[in-house]
């Protein structure tokens, strides 16, 4: 952008930063409170009047949650479910989205809308028949069943998102590739996929979060404590009579850290350069 006036540009930039910083601080205030609470020792949590900053900060909650409460093993389970979900949903969503974007398919509109239907029914309603079916096909008490369930309810988003994304990429690009000797499949994998990275990144984030923070499927479909996911373990701190705030907050923060790291890493793909350059030459 050509700045008409360097001073105006500087002020604009400053204002933008101030706005962003203010927003980020206020929107994350609850989390700052969470972090502060997670550093409180048990006796401080129920003390009145409640102070935000702990008088004697301690890391004992984190150590307790990680070791005594076996969060370290549940961590692996969550990772497995989430990675499997992202891989499956992304593959299925990208291929189906591509099909809808580029090919003439009978009843395309009807199919697209029907796929959305799968998302509309409240999962609590079909969880019991789903559990029954999964048990019959041998997936009882397996983390794969959780990944499968979360994948199927994430698919509507994945398909639509990728369909939209592929539609923004000009058809000339594939034509150029096929002229160069690729068949449709090669054109898809070698040319289209790299261009669709921002769409895939957005889909990946959504699927990862859906799987990572899922409670319903992970709680009902898994019966062994050893195969619990992080979020299910987290809920055990939300008691009927008492909430152990300090332990709950440290467990929550531990649960959120991998997600935040994932956000950082996926950024590169989200903010990709535009496709304009790919037509030249």
């Amino acid at each position, binding site marked *: 952008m050509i700045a008409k006036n360097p001073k105006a540009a500087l002020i604009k930039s400053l204002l933008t930063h101030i706005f962003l910083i203010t927003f980020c601080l206020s929107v994350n205030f609850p989390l700052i409170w969470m972090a502060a609470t997670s550093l409180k020792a048990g006796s401080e949590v129920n003390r009145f009047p409640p102070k935000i900053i702990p008088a004697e900060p301690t890391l004992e909650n984190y150590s307790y949650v990680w070791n005594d409460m076996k969060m370290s093993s549940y961590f692996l389970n969550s990772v497995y479910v989430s990675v499997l979900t992202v891989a499956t949903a992304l593959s299925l969503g990208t291929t189906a989205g591509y099909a809808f974007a580029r090919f003439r398919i009978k009843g395309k509109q009807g199919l697209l809308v029907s796929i959305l239907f799968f998302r509309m029914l*409240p999962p609590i309603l079909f969880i019991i028949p789903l559990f029954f079916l999964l048990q019959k096909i041998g997936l009882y008490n397996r983390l794969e069943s959780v990944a499968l369930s979360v994948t199927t309810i994430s698919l509507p988003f994945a398909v639509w998102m990728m369909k939209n994304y592929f539609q923004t990429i000009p058809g000339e690009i594939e034509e150029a590739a096929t002229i160069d000797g690729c068949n449709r499949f090669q054109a898809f994998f070698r040319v289209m996929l790299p261009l669709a990275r921002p769409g895939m990144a957005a889909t990946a984030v959504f699927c990862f979060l859906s799987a990572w923070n899922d409670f319903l499927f992970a709680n009902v479909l898994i019966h062994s404590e050893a195969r619990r996911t992080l979020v299910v373990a987290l809920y055990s701190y939300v008691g009927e009579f008492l909430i152990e705030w300090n332990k709950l907050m440290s467990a*929550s923060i531990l649960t959120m850290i991998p997600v935040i790291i994932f956000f950082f890493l996926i950024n590169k793909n989200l903010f990709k350069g535009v496709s304009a350059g790919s037509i030249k030459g």
Partner: protein
Amino acid sequence: MKERNVGAIFLSPTILALCLVILLPILFSVSMAFFQFDLLRVGRGNPFVGIGHFVTSINNKLFWNALGNTFLWTAANVILQLLTGLLFALILNRKIRFKVVYYVLILIPWATPSAVAALIWRWMLHAELGIINAVLIRLHILTDPNPWLSIPGWAMVWVVIARVWKEYAFCTVIMTAALQGIPASLYEAAMVDGAGSVTRFFRITLPWLKPSILIATVLVAIGSFNGFNMIWMMTKGGPVRTTEIISTFIYQTGFERYQMGRASAQSLVMVLILAFMIITYIKRMKSEEEPFR
């Protein structure tokens, strides 16, 4: 290879997965709506009731209360989440220092487990010890603390704010991804033609974003209709059912009153209304010119 077949090959794994895993359970749940399915009575038989459950539910004014609240809740969520998401996607689409840091900070609320988010918001809105009251009193907007989540009307406002807080990152991510696809050459050409930034936004950016706005609206609407945790853990549908939405209502019917058949019928009515709204919306959006097609 015939073009049609290639398309089918790309599409079939998804359709297969959906059919194998979800279709049967969904069909079963749908069929529950036509049988008694009284959990307290399942051992004693499960007679066919036809549209009995539908009639009972439609005659129940609390069902309509829940639906009405759901429309309000959904509209508020869609509008606020879309606007916030779009705003930040646009702001962060430029070259800004520390863009990535800002971006991640903006996304963090999305990572909070929903039960924890609900509890934190409850705590902040606490009538006597909550920070929100403390701040409002300090700013002299209030003289006495308000029990926000127990004031009909205000409770809905705050649960909407809490949910938007948690979910706006979803729209932000969708819009950001979409913005990446806009060729810079379009903007350059427009600027050469003398178009100001407002014109550029309405003539180039917005039309490009239409499909993403469509899918974001649809998914946020579906998510809101089904949204459960925030409301259940903040107000349980209170005060006096002013935040009772259809998903909490259905949960109570099925798991508190143990009437699964009725809950299924209510879900079907909800899905039909939702589907009707969505199809109308999609048709309307599609009937306008799509760019570049």
